[in-house]
């Protein structure tokens, strides 16, 4: 039984996970306009895609959102992680450590809804943000991405030999210098990994973005979703294939960096 059971189980599992993706990639090279009928190999839909203003615009918005929210999330998440690991015990530390991971498990619908309510009431009372659009999506994505970065940075900071920081202190560096000269370079690979992860998370998000976006600020997942509701068109397959490619590369680099930084310590 052992001889065939394990390989079969593994094969079944991987087919279950990847068959939809593979069929999507294969059909993105389909000549036919009908999504379910194979009409020969072609890159026609990729060309079509490049001429689609709406999709290119949405892709540009998505990239901007992903870049800025990943960057802001990395800064905020790193600072949060630093405070939680390095400062001596303060009241509420345990609570804060737990709370920082809460956005990871919070249903997106709730996150999206609560952010929408916040933005609306802020606009009414403070006048900012005026309307919803790029800014509100970036803020919303920063919020949940920061939690991911904080978790990654925290685990790296815990592993780091604290005497490195003490040694820099001992050699005459003030606390701020120590952070930039020693702590930051040492945890940098983990931060880059965190940034990449935040980038892909932001790129993927549909639910939260739908809640907090406004007219003229549709991200790529939002455009795809609205297109698909009118019927699946083959150029969406091509677009999805490209996104899978980007995400795959980012996740691989992030994984490699994390692995390397753990090994080097």
């Amino acid at each position, binding site marked *: 039984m052992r001889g065939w059971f394990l390989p079969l189980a593994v094969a079944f599992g991987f087919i279950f996970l990847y068959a939809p993706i593979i069929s999507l990639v294969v059909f993105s090279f389909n000549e036919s306009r009908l999504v379910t009928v194979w009409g020969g190999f072609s890159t026609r839909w990729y060309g079509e895609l490049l001429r689609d203003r709406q999709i290119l615009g949405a892709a540009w918005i998505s990239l901007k959102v992903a870049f800025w929210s990943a960057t802001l999330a990395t800064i905020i998440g790193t600072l949060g992680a630093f405070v939680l690991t390095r400062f001596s015990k303060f009241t509420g530390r345990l609570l804060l450590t737990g709370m920082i991971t809460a956005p990871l498990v919070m249903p997106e619908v709730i996150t999206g809804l609560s952010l929408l309510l916040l933005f609306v009431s802020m606009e009414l009372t403070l006048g900012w943000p005026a309307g919803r659009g790029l800014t509100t999506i970036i803020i919303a994505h920063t919020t949940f991405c920061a939690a991911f970065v904080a978790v990654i940075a925290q685990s790296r900071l815990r592993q780091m*030999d604290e*005497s*490195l920081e*003490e*040694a*820099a*202190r*001992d*050699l*005459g*560096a*003030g606390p701020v*210098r120590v952070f930039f*000269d*020693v702590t930051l*370079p*040492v945890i940098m690979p983990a931060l880059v990994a965190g940034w990449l992860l935040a980038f892909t998370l932001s790129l993927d998000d549909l639910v939260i973005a739908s809640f907090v976006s406004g007219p003229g600020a549709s991200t790529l997942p939002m455009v795809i979703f609205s297109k698909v509701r009118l019927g699946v068109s083959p150029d969406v397959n091509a677009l999805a294939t490209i996104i899978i490619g980007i995400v795959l590369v980012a996740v691989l680099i992030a994984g490699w960096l994390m692995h390397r930084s753990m090994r*080097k*310590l």
Partner: protein
Amino acid sequence: MSDAAMIDAKQPAIAAETKPWRAKGTRPFISVKNIVKRFGDFTAVSNVDLDIYKGELFCLLGESGCGKSTLLRMLAGFEQPTSGTITIDGEDMARVPPDRRPTNMMFQSYALFPHMTVEKNVAYGLLREGLSRSAAYERAGEMLRMVKLEKQARRKPDQLSGGQRQRVALARALVKKPKLLLLDEPLGALDKKLREETQFELIKIQETLGVTFIVVTHDQDEAMTLATRIGVMKDGIIEQIGEPREIYETPNSRFVADFIGSVNLVEGKIDAVAPDLMRIETNELGPVLLPPQPGYTRGQQVWGAVRPERWALTRAKPETNPNTWQGVVEELGYIGHMSHYRIRLENGVLIRASQSNRLRDEDPISWDEKVWISVQPTAFRVLTR
């Protein structure tokens, strides 16, 4: 080779004979007064007083958790004392942060910055001092020559061997010419052979630079080899401070006697005090005769300590020595330069004795032999606690 010659050529800044702690009234260089450190309910260091003199190589010796590292970290400024004062060269350290103290530390893990080259690691402290890049790198280079690592200057720490990393850590800690160098288990990560070589190298460097060293170690051989004086710590208290020889020959407690080297301890009461003689009635050995010592009274509870190498083992009964017992060799460990014996006396007491093997063609006392063991009256150390 030329580096070693350079070190040799320089006159050691501190002559080996100088022992400022023996002279009354010498001003200590580092003064720790009644220092206490508590972590919550746990008292890591309790009421320690310690004076250390310029140019000393002082060892804090104790098992892990005895508070020696905490004391070192308070000197470096990484821990704030709960109460008490630390003075270095006349300056109170209470409000001085670690980056402004005239001390440097060599960490047990070496704590080399993994993202910097060897050269950058060593120059880092000088750059923080405000030295120009060229001057800093020049001095770092000199320091690396002294520890014989000039060829590895451009390498990263993970490309070095353990011994090389240890030398980089030492160079980095010394390059700023601190008034006081703190070393936390500096040789702990090296293997035995390398450790013994490095011990003497460390002493040589210390004497050449004239920097005061405080070394924390749990290794008594290391402490005995390195130190001008040793402070033996236990449960946050310094049990005894003294030169290696004092610590070994005149321990002040059963703990110190047992902790440094090995020892036979017997318990008893002072039986007779005469002008020329003192007698202890011991539980293990019966009456033991000692030269008279001041400060003891009849009936006082005491302990006697004898080092294993102080016993004489003979097949014939010694004629003149009154402190003589008979027993049987129960265990024998031959380790080359010495043999360790465990001898069972007639009353069942086990005595540890060791003999140095000075001749190649001796007929050694062996297992199950009946032997006489004797000890000179002066070899007994009387302890009251």
